[in-house]
């Protein structure tokens, strides 16, 4: 029930909004979102990491089953279970945090079809939380796909002028990726079921073949390298579209740009994290032998993405698109951190999911607030807002520096760890820690730091600073009740994110400590594998060609 409520509250809120009159919709939405957040916080406090330090026997790395399985279709052996570990818990908290903020940000922006809007927002929250708390493939995949639907409608109904194209492209693009991912899952589960002797726990000795952890252990141990390679490609395609990894990114700028503020914020803050979370949850722990081979290429794509999209950002004329492209670059840092395959990069990559959600989401919120007042997104058409909107300007500058990774703010810790992990992940030349990337990857990706400063300061220099330039037709919208600068509601929307950015930037220790076991869990198979790969790279002839001994004790007796 504990975790089930995380899904239940937003769904309940959606139903309530549906029943109640539409003038109450936004208040009910806010209430539902706040309830979700509140329960998320309570839930987090119940997590044994905090409640029982030092907890004996609590396997923090593994998934803490907060709910017993619901035997939904017992005949098929489908036992759905929900649970979290530190990483998914943090992502759940991120989703919960943005739920009320997004509602607050839409109070005046959405004036038509209000009811539906908040219903879709609530469903979106439920779906995304579902992805993070899933313990089996079916729940995971279902929630992963369901999250598309509210996103689709949010863009298609409430979006900008190109909303039809944007929503269809987004939907079909990501669906295309996830269908292939589904094929990968199906293969894995079938293979597992074949090995253990069937779907049914009654026939195969009580093994839940859908369980992600069991599946991970199985795949890691018994899949041949070739199979691992194919599974990696299939899963990675689905997740890479969501991350997004260059060159599968073109749906994102369009969708971000056309979506209403709430949609853009949700995209940036949580939807992109689904891909990175998938990499963390499935790709890296499941198919280690393939990952060791493919990691340099995936990291290569991520680095191309960092440089390429950072440059594209600089040439943008539209603010929202600029931030959207910057998300691609940032998620590239997250990817290289994860694929550095060492604890430093893993911690950095995991933390990056959170910090990117904060900075990018907050910047979209800021732009949305400005857009509500001036109805302009083109960088050239507006400028010098510092004079008329000093509070807004403060937040923009703050989140800009979070985004460029200024030390002391959230972005830095994760970015630094990602790059450090990437850089030192190579044992050539007597140093570093085993890894398959290495100094060159770190240095080239590091150029992204410079480019990041260039495009973000370009944006700030044009929009925040400079001589005041507010478009003429502004006066036509004078009727809107918004004051010139941010009102209290909007400040309340941005201030929590700012506070969290400072907190993570100055005192990330609790988070780093909490995600450490999960990061180690993700990397269970790696120290040996990576060291081997390193030696192979260095052309070490003494490398044994014997098959690698199994890493974890076999749970399923003597399987093929």
């Amino acid at each position: 029930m504990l975790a089930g409520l995380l899904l239940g509250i937003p769904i309940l809120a959606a139903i309530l909004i549906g029943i109640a009159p539409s003038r109450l919709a936004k208040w009910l939405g806010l209430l539902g979102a706040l309830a979700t957040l509140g329960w998320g916080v309570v839930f987090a406090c119940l997590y044994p990491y905090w409640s029982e330090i030092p907890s004996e026997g609590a396997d923090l790395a593994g998934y803490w089953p907060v709910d017993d399985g619901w035997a939904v279709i017992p005949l098929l052996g489908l036992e759905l279970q929900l649970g979290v570990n530190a990483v998914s818990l943090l992502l759940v908290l991120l989703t919960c945090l943005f739920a009320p903020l997004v509602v607050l940000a839409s109070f005046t922006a959405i004036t038509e079809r209000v009811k539906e809007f908040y219903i879709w927002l609530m469903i979106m929250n439920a779906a995304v939380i579902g992805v993070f708390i899933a313990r089996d493939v079916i729940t995971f995949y279902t929630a992963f796909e369901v999250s598309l639907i509210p996103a689709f409608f949010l863009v298609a109904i409430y979006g900008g002028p190109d909303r039809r194209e944007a929503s269809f492209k987004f939907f079909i693009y990501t669906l295309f990726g996830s269908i292939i991912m589904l094929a990968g899952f199906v293969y894995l589960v079938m293979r597992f079921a074949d090995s253990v002797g069937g779907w049914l726990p009654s026939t195969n000795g009580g093994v839940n073949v859908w369980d992600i952890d069991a599946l991970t252990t199985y795949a890691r141990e018994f899949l041949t390298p070739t199979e691992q390679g194919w599974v990696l490609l299939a899963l990675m395609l689905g997740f890479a579209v969501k991350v997004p990894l260059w060159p599968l990114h073109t749906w994102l700028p369009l969708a971000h740009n056309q979506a209403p503020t709430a949609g853009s914020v949700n995209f940036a803050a949580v939807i992109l994290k689904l891909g990175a979370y998938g990499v963390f949850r499935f790709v890296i722990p499941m198919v280690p032998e393939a990952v060791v081979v493919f990691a340099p290429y995936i990291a290569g794509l991520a680095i191309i993405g960092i440089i390429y999209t950072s440059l594209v950002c600089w040439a943008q004329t539209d603010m929202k698109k600029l931030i959207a492209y910057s998300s691609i670059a940032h998620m590239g840092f997250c990817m290289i951190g994860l694929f550095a395959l060492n604890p430093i990069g893993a911690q950095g990559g995991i933390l990056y999911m959170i910090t990117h959600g904060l900075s990018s989401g907050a910047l979209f919120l800021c732009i949305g607030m400005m857009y509500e007042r001036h109805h302009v997104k083109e960088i050239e058409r507006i400028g010098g807002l510092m004079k008329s909107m000093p509070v807004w300007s403060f937040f923009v500058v703050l989140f800009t520096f979070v985004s460029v990774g200024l030390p002391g703010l959230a972005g830095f810790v994760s970015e630094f760890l990602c790059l450090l992990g990437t850089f030192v992940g190579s044992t050539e030349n007597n140093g570093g820690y085993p890894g398959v990337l290495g100094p060159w990857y770190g240095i080239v990706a590091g150029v992204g730091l410079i480019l990041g400063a260039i495009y973000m300061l370009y944006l700030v220099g044009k929009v925040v600073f400079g001589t005041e330039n507010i478009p003429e037709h502004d006066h036509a919208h004078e009727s809107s009740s918004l004051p010139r600068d941010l009102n209290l509601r909007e400040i309340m929307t941005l201030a929590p994110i700012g506070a969290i950015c400072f907190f993570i930037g100055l005192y990330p220790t609790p988070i780093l400590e909490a995600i450490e076991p999960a990061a180690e869990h993700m990397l269970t198979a790696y120290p040996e594998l990576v060291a081997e790969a390193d030696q192979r790279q260095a052309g070490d002839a003494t490398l044994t060609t014997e098959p690698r001994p199994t890493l974890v004790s076999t749970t399923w007796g003597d399987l093929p």
Partner: protein
Amino acid sequence: MLSPTLATLMTSAGESIPGGVTPIPEAAREESLAWAGLILLFPAVSAIICGLCAACRVRNRLPGWTTVIALASSFVVVCLLYGQHQAGQPTVIHLFDWINFSWGDGTFESVRANFALYVDDLSIFWMLFVTGLGTCIAFYATEYMDDDRGKGYSRFFAAMSIFLLAMCSLVLGDNLVMLYLGWEGVGLASYLLISYYYTRQSAIDAGKKAFIMNRIGDLGLAVGIWLIWYNFGTLEYDGLFQALNVYLPIADAGNLPGTEIGQPQLGWSAYLIPWFLMVGAFGKSAQFPLMTWLPDAMEGPTPVSALIHAATMVTAGIYLIARTYPIFWLEMEAGGYALATVGWIGGFTALLAATIALKQYDMKRVLAYSTLSQLGYMFMGLGVVQTFGACFHVYTHAFFKALLFLCSGTIMHGLAGQLDVRRISGLRMAKGWKVVTWCMFVGGLWLAAFPFTAGFFSKDEILAQAFVQKGPGYRALGWIGIVTAGLTAYYTFRVWFRVFGGRTLRIEPGPEHHGDPSSFHPHPPGWRMKSILILLTIGCFAAISTGYWGIGHWIKGMVDHSSAAWGMPLHWEEGDIPFFGGDPHWTMYFVSGTFGLIGLAFAAYFHLINRRSAERLDELFKRNFITNLIPRTLERKWYLDEVYNALVRIPTYLSAKFFYLFDRLVIDGLLVGGIARIPMFLGRVFQPLQGGALQGYATTMAGGVTLVVVWMIWVFLQKGGG
């Protein structure tokens, strides 16, 4: 590869090598000194208060005074800490965890970068003048920024506090990541303060340029930090120094660590560390080729130019190298040229900037280029293994350059923004400008290294060492320094003679004056500005005694008890290389003093005694194209901005535009759009099959059945026919 190491030097001198280097002492962990964290806390609190003042639109002087009090308190705490400090014994004071995790017990199995202070003589020395000068300049700014109350006053002081906070963590941090925090933090403060007049396009551009150019340097620093972890598995100074304690004696004995079996292993990439750290230092301290941001940074309010862009922040590069000097030393012992490069880049920048300063008309720009030039001297000092000289020069420079900037600030303030030396003359005769006149005169003398001033001693310490230390072309480097000293004296007094000299008072008001220029009267500085000018002048005099006479070798003691001198061989004594027939440390006084006086004399002739002759000389140059190139090139700053624009900015921007189009047309248009058309295309192909004609359906069905049957037979045969 022959190394310019002392080991070789000693061997060639026929002496035996006693071996051994000064070991780097292990830091003591003192939890009881946690109150030292107040040094960081005061500016942080002040920044928050100023921020709140900005949010509440406070119109009084509260933010200004808060900042002054906070910085003064920090200074007091630094003094108390100095009282507690034992010379030569570094102390680590752990405040709280920052990035701190491990996944094993080995060396390469943890990442530790906490908020902890590394207190040794070097950091205390730096902190003393940073917080001390910071307080003075904040006090000065309370008057200077008075007109901005209610506009940017709170913002200004918030940024000042952020700057001091960042600078303190840069200097005091016990690990390289905290240094990086301060490093970027001062960059942020600098960006915010340069763009302070945010409606001015030039100010925004200058701020952006400063931040981005610094970011280029920061990447170098970051790579250096990563390389340090890569090779030593630690990010903390103490861990790094203890690791180096193992390698330095081996290197000193003439072996490369890692080349012989049984020795501790050290990969070659360890020798790249100094090169990357150097890039970071050059970015922050505005050395060639990352120098062009500093003159533009003069767009900020003058107190900022004095504090950040002259006295403290730009010396962070010197601090970085002095702090990590053992790594540079190791690289040099291994036969590398990192230190030589530092010295040469410094010397080159010193000369380059001095030549540019000759032809600048904006007073603050002249001072900015003189800062570049003086920073060049400091790097030269580091390069020629004269860390004491470099740090001493940082110290004296901080006083006289702050004084000069604050004087020019009073001029700018009093003359409605006028800074053009051609448009001011005889200011000494204006009412109420006596203090400024003579304070600036003292600052000028110190900058020009007039004999027996502090600048004279500190500069000569460096120049003399260039003739003592053996290294690639160090004698030539020394001569470059001497020539630059002459140029420095010339351009400094060119400004002073132009502005304060002259027979009559003649002033054109600056752009901030609205109304009839003839009715303009410069308003002299008030007591707060004046008192700080006088205080700094006293400081300039005190700098002589603290560094040289009187209190004796106070600064030398500080520097020698720190990482700027640790790790050097015990047996190192200076060689006996004569310079003009004597010990360079002695003869240099006469040589550089002479050059300085010559420069001064030229300035006096052209800009005080016979100003017509300067104009005639100018006309002479302008007469034909070839000779006109010289003044024009200097005025245009050797076209460095244009060259960077053409070589870096424009290509990058063009590639940005190219990728922008590539993304739209190729990736999105051709690839994604193309793949998206495949289903549509397939649909077109199979459309006729569902046209509704019965024959069509029949054909399709027949075809399908045939295919299925063929497939079944094939499978059947494959399985062995039974």
